């Protein structure tokens, strides 16, 4: 209390009485202050003699003004949502951060980033998980902790590149320049994981020197730092006579074998690899190398040049021979029939009367062949393709005919040529007809189309387009049939599905129950399991939570609860049935709770402590369950602990059970004995967590 001066007499001797709340000048007796405002903690006695402090809890990052009920409701809702988002984010950050073993300072920084992100509305349209992972990774980078993006993606089971995308977006929007990753940062971490014991420090130092050397030799630009570290550690380990195989290193460093080998070979190519161990520790070579991909590129270029020179020389020698070759080839091309694609060739093959078909086709094909010089190559390719596909096509047609008319199978051989003849004539007519139609189609078109700009009028400018070549892109009727058959065969499943869907829709329309089904997100399927333990296992399988959970311990936790539950003699068969069905239902509900958690253990505690819906059951049950988690020996205590509970609250127990079990017959509830209640409590203990 600052000493004040009395107004009346000027004396500075002022007596402040806290009890009365007044300040009085001792000189003149004038009262300077009445009803002094005091900042003290006050206690109030509550029911049962419990004394509690008076006041409201205001959190640092809660809503700015205290949550008002009634007045100010509208603004309260908006603030609430933001507060909730931030709260949710903070919780997730804490969760994820603790898994990464980040200290509190980092987590706070990450939360600040998250607040920035939310205020810039960057969380819209993105999963909160991704955003939070990106915030955490940003903190890791700025602080320089040895965490990789891969670690985060492992924890979340998300693709690295998706996280990377979010991370890059954050750096851009928040204008934060994260320092580049230095492979040296990862070495202590990996060395620790490889367990070098006492010599850990020495091996790390050697590996560090190796990495620095690699950096100088330009091996590290554009590569994942973890790969380099892996190679360096492997070499360092061998140098210090530790046996670490490639597999060990890979498991720690998370790259694949090929990458590691490649790094090692690249290092081998550098002049440093020629030094002995002692020399390496003492001397540092001045010379720097080019990056390995650069040298590889140069090498390739050189090889290409050599090849070109060789080819040129060969050409000079074989000049004459090639001339003769070309002449022969042109002759061959002229005599070879031109093919218009797989289907044309196949269609031709069908008819035995090829002589009638050929000249017509040749006429059709020779005209487009003239302007094209590349036809020779294409024809060769097509011939080869045609040979390969002919068998397939024949098989397809055979299957059809064989399946359709098994009797005709015998006369198949005769059947096809008989079919072939009319088909060939149809083919001939069809191809001719089509050709004619196309030829008549073309001349009017250029006259009709205006020569002006194609864009405003929307008409197609035909300049420079070779129509005859385009004709080749269109199949004629026979080919269309063949292709239709093939396609329907290939996509039979899909077409069936479509038909069924349509039928279903028409049926529902008739019934009047047709609803426009929008795409719904897949809801979590309800897991059916006999015991809570099974349910937990199934859920974990589905959720693919980390393999670091010891399932045996999980199972053990369930069993002791199961054994006292099974102990009381199942006098009424109803009770075990009830128990099972109750378990099933409650297991499902428990899973709904559990499936929200990443790690089972930590979340369980929170769920136990913070979840409200079940807490019609008294607090002691929660405590006993908690005790059970920590020490499985406590489990036998649970039923005896439950017994005194059964005493004071037998009336309570049936009512919550009744309300939850609609399907159970309520009449039975009254006849349940105290012992059976104990058994029921035992089973409930299971599912509480």
């Amino acid at each position, binding site marked *: 209390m600052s000493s004040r001066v009395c107004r009346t007499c000027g004396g500075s001797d002022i007596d402040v009485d806290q009890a009365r709340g007044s300040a009085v000048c001792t000189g003149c007796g004038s009262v300077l202050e009445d009803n002094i405002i005091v900042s003290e903690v006050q206690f109030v006695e509550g029911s049962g003699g419990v004394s509690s402090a008076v006041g409201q809890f205001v959190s640092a990052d809660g809503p700015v003004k205290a949550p008002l009920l009634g007045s100010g409701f509208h603004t309260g809702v908006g603030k609430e949502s933001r507060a909730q988002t931030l709260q949710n984010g903070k919780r997730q950050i804490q969760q994820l951060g603790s898994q990464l073993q980040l200290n509190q300072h980092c987590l706070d920084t990450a939360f600040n980033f998250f607040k920035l992100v939310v205020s810039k509305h960057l969380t819209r349209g993105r999963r909160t998980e991704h955003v939070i992972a990106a915030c955490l990774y940003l903190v890791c980078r700025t602080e320089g902790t040895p965490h*990789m*993006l*891969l670690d985060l993606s492992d924890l979340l089971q998300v693709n*690295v*590149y998706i996280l*990377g995308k979010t*991370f*890059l977006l954050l*750096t*851009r929007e928040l*204008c934060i*320049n994260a320092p*580049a*990753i230095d492979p040296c940062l990862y070495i202590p971490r990996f060395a620790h994981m490889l367990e070098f014991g006492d010599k850990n420090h020495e091996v790390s130092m050697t590996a560090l020197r190796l990495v620095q050397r690699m950096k100088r030799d*330009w091996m*590290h*630009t*554009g*590569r*994942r*730092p*973890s790969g380099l570290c892996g190679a360096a550690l492997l070499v360092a380990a061998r140098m210090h006579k530790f046996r670490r195989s490639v597999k060990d290193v890979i498991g720690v460093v998370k790259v694949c074998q090929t990458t590691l080998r490649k790094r090692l070979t690249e290092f081998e190519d550098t002049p440093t690899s020629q030094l002995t161990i002692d020399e390496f520790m003492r001397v540092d070579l001045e010379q720097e190398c*080019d*990056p390995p*991909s*650069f040298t590889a*590129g140069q090498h390739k270029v050189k090889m290409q040049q050599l090849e070109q020179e060789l080819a040129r020389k060969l050409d000079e020698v074989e000049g004459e021979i090639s001339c003769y070759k070309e002449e022969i080839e042109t002759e061959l091309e002229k005599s070879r029939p031109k093919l218009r*694609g797989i*289907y044309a060739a196949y269609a031709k093959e069908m008819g035995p009367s090829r002589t009638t078909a050929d000249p017509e086709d040749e006429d059709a094909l020779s005209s487009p062949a003239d302007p094209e010089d590349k036809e020779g190559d*294409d024809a060769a390719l097509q011939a080869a393709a045609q040979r390969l596909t002919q068998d397939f096509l024949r098989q397809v047609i055979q299957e059809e005919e064989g399946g359709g008319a098994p009797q005709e199978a015998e006369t198949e051989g005769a059947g096809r040529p008989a079919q072939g003849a009319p088909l060939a004539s149809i083919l001939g007519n069809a191809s001719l007809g089509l050709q004619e139609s*196309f030829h008549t*189609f073309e001349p009017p078109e250029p006259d009709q189309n205006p020569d002006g700009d*194609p*864009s405003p009028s*929307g*008409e*197609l*400018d*035909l300049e*420079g*387009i*070779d*129509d005859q*070549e*385009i*004709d*080749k*892109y*269109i*199949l004629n009727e026979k080919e*269309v049939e063949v*292709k*239709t058959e093939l*396609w329907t065969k290939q*996509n039979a499943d*899909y077409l069936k599905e479509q038909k069924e869907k349509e039928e279903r829709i028409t049926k529902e329309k008739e019934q009047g129950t047709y609803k426009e089904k929008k795409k719904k997100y897949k809801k979590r399927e309800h897991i059916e399991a006999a015991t809570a333990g099974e349910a937990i296992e199934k859920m974990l399988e589905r959720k693919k939570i980390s393999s670091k959970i010891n399932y045996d311990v999980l199972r053990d936790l369930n069993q002791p609860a199961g054994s006292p539950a099974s102990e009381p003699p199942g006098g009424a068969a109803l009770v075990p049935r009830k128990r099972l069905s109750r378990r099933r239902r409650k297991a499902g509900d428990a899973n709904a709770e559990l499936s929200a958690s990443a790690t089972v253990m930590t979340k369980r505690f929170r769920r136990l402590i913070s979840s409200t819906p079940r807490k019609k059951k008294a607090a002691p049950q929660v405590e006993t369950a908690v005790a059970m988690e920590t020490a499985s020996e406590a489990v036998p205590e649970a039923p005896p602990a439950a017994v005194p509970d059964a005493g004071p609250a037998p009336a309570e127990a049936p009512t919550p059970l009744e309300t939850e079990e609609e399907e159970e017959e309520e009449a039975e509830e009254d006849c349940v004995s105290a012992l059976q209640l104990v058994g029921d409590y035992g089973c409930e203990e299971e599912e509480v967590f």
Partner: protein
Amino acid sequence: MDSNNDEALDIIVTNVVATFRTRCHLNLRKIALEGTNVIYKPEVGKVLMKLRKPKITASIWSSGKIICTGATSEEEAKLGARRLARCLQKLGFKVRFSAFRVVNVLAVCSMPFAVHLVDFTKNNRPIASYEPELHPAATYRIKNLKATVQVFSTGSLTVTGMLLSHDHTHTHLPSLPSFIYS
């Protein structure tokens, strides 16, 4: 130094992506069954048609929107698009060629020297970004040209963006050496 580089650098346009509209509904099944070199993907709802002469792959949707990729120059892209429209016309659809627009151009260029990416990124801080864990190249975004340059440590560059091909060579060449030598 710059003039030397101008002669040594050749920027090769490797891919041009263009879209256009046919202003009419297209029956994909008919195209799939009656055209050669087509792949029909009913699950996605499009048809892929590959032309040989300008080597172009076109994705055709039933709404009439078509995307052509694989051309090596803009003129080629336009020619290919027109050929495609002609082909569809012959199949019997009332095709009109409208709204032809080049969407993206990809060019490749190679420097005769290697680039130290970490220093490069440090010097060009907000514009360049380099994440070795994700991609081996440093990405450099030029906002006013709306282009992205990816710089690899071997000295090769890929330039992507909505520029016309002659723009690439004129605007890009002088800017490149300055970025890299700094």
